[in-house]
């Protein structure tokens, strides 16, 4: 649960806000253009910053040091209020005016995502990232600067938002940028798929074929319920057409289903619908509710104790898995899932989601469990939470 922001003392003028932080040895290797590198210097190491300036580096970072040294020849980022936040390999945004450092890419994190836009054309009841209608094209510009600074060995990079297709031609541009800078990185793009009902839009992302998975939420097998959940009339038809348009063009598609009181009644039919109508999807993800954003407001509309839907979820998930559609269950702790569903339960993908309740102390299944969302409160706590003793786990 490492925060993404911290404060620092910044002295000297930085020519650019985005910097790749590298330790001295890696910085000198020259894989990243020097003018985009802040050289991370451990405390106590004696380095001639004049030589670093001659080599064209942008800045030096001395996380634990309170102020610049008298002979520093480069802009210095020092005095981090939390020195753990930034580590070599990360890409940071430096706000020179207020000293805020934000980590935009974290090396070694198990999920790195690019936040594309705050705008959305749906208003899902349980949205964890409520949209805002603001001009945020600056994000795309920043991402285009960020992408080349990401480590090329990164196996997967997420695109999240907001609805990325609302960026129009900028979405293909971002995909192109990723393909150029990160040829070995798979993209995982969250979208409601509605805009792909227009074949021209589906055509426009042709470069994503073979390197991206489109993660598209579908909450029912019938329009009325899906449209209600996403609070947009006609959304079901558009999403279905969008899925077919993408599939027709050879794209990989993941279907996401969030389990709550509004989707639960059609969950079994939904599984059957998928198998009958979309056997081509490469992955189906059933997900527990994320108690943030709109979900907090709509708690009474949405809440079902996972213990109560466990058996139904197990059946729906295995219905698809048995028909050779790879199926996963996310965000539901093992103790509230029937054991039959455990083989399909995945550990949560984001570091910040992976926290545990005090009741989890001593649970021998913790290494395999997804844990809880960081934002969980008592109102979202299942009565089924418990720790497994070693003998139970051994069975």
């Amino acid at each position, binding site marked *: 649960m490492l925060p993404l922001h911290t404060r620092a003392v910044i002295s000297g003028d930085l020519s650019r806000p985005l910097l790749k932080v590298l330790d001295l040895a890696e910085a*000198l290797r020259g894989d990243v253009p020097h003018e985009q590198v802040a050289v991370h210097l451990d405390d106590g190491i*004696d380095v*001639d910053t004049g*030589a670093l300036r*001659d080599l064209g580096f942008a800045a030096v970072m001395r996380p634990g040091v309170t102020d610049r040294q008298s002979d520093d020849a480069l802009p210095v980022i020092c005095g981090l209020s939390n020195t753990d936040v930034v580590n070599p390999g990360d890409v940071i945004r430096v706000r020179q005016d207020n000293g805020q450092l934000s980590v935009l890419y974290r090396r070694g994190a198990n999920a790195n995502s690019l936040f594309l836009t705050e705008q959305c054309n749906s208003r899902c009841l349980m949205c964890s990232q409520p949209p805002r209608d603001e001009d945020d094209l600056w994000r795309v510009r920043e991402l285009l600067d960020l992408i080349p600074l990401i480590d090329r060995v990164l196996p997967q990079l997420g695109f999240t938002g907001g609805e990325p297709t609302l960026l129009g031609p900028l979405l293909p541009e971002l995909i192109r940028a990723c393909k150029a800078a990160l040829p070995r990185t798979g993209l995982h793009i969250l979208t409601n798929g509605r805009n792909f009902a227009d074949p021209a839009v589906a055509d426009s992302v042709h470069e994503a074929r073979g390197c991206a998975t489109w993660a598209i939420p579908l909450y029912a097998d019938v329009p009325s319920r899906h449209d209600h959940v996403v609070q947009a009339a006609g959304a079901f038809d558009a999403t279905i057409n969008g899925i077919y348009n993408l599939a027709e063009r050879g794209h990989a598609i993941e279907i996401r289903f969030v389990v709550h009181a509004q989707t639960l009644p059609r969950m079994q039919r939904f599984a059957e619908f998928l198998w009958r109508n979309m056997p081509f999807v490469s992955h189906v993800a059933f997900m527990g509710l994320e108690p943030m954003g709109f979900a907090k407001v709509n708690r009474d509309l949405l809440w079902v104790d996972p213990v109560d839907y466990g058996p139904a979820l197990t059946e729906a998930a295995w219905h698809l898995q048995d028909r050779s559609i790879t199926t996963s269950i996310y965000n539901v702790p093992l103790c509230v899932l029937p054991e039959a569903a455990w083989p399909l339960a995945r550990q949560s993908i984001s570091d910040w989601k992976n926290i545990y309740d005090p009741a989890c102390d001593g649970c021998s299944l913790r290494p395999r469990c997804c844990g809880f969302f960081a934002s969980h409160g008592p109102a979202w706590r299942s009565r089924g939470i418990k720790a497994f003793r070693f003998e139970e786990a051994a069975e």
Partner: protein
Amino acid sequence: MKKKNWTDYLKQVLGWTAPTAATLSSIWSPAQAGPLPVLLPEAHPSNTRLQPLTFVMPNRMEGPEIYIGHRSHSSHRSHSSHRSHYSSAGGYTSPSYSAPVYSPPPPPPPAPVYSAPSTVTTPSWSSPSKTPPSYQPSAPAVGSNSSGTAAAPRASQQDAIAMTMRVQVELMRLGYYKGKIDGKMGSGTKEALRAFQRAEGLAVTGVMDNATLGKLGVVG
């Protein structure tokens, strides 16, 4: 996620079943216009069998020594190698060889002074003036045996600073260097290099030669 490399797999299988490979190729080539027939010729048992799968990671730099300064560029070495090459070619001084009587016109001094041995086999043996085909090292050396001459690329000033700093970082990490990381090849750095070279059994030169850089893991 992880895809099986089918072409390699196929190559392996064909390696085991080499005798049938020819038949297979004749059967497949019309139907499979893909890469399969192309792969077949190289699927030879001696290549594919008994060869463990390894990743080749060079641990030292190939090519000219570009980080060690001028004095090591001994252009004499390459010349001596040329000379020995000549003497080993033999045949010039053999008196038993009765050459056809053909006296060539005096050879014009050729611009590319190194004449390949094949041209010497023309009947010019009797010409007494020919005895040592004078190799003049004045012109820039040509051919593949010219490595290590003054024509080798020198590292730019910035590259040299960066490389020196990298070496200082590594020497410091290993405990040989305690000074300032400044990119300057000062006495402390040279001494640390010598100590490292001594400990690693390398030639104790005190300069950043390729063998030392390789041992330090400062590559590329």
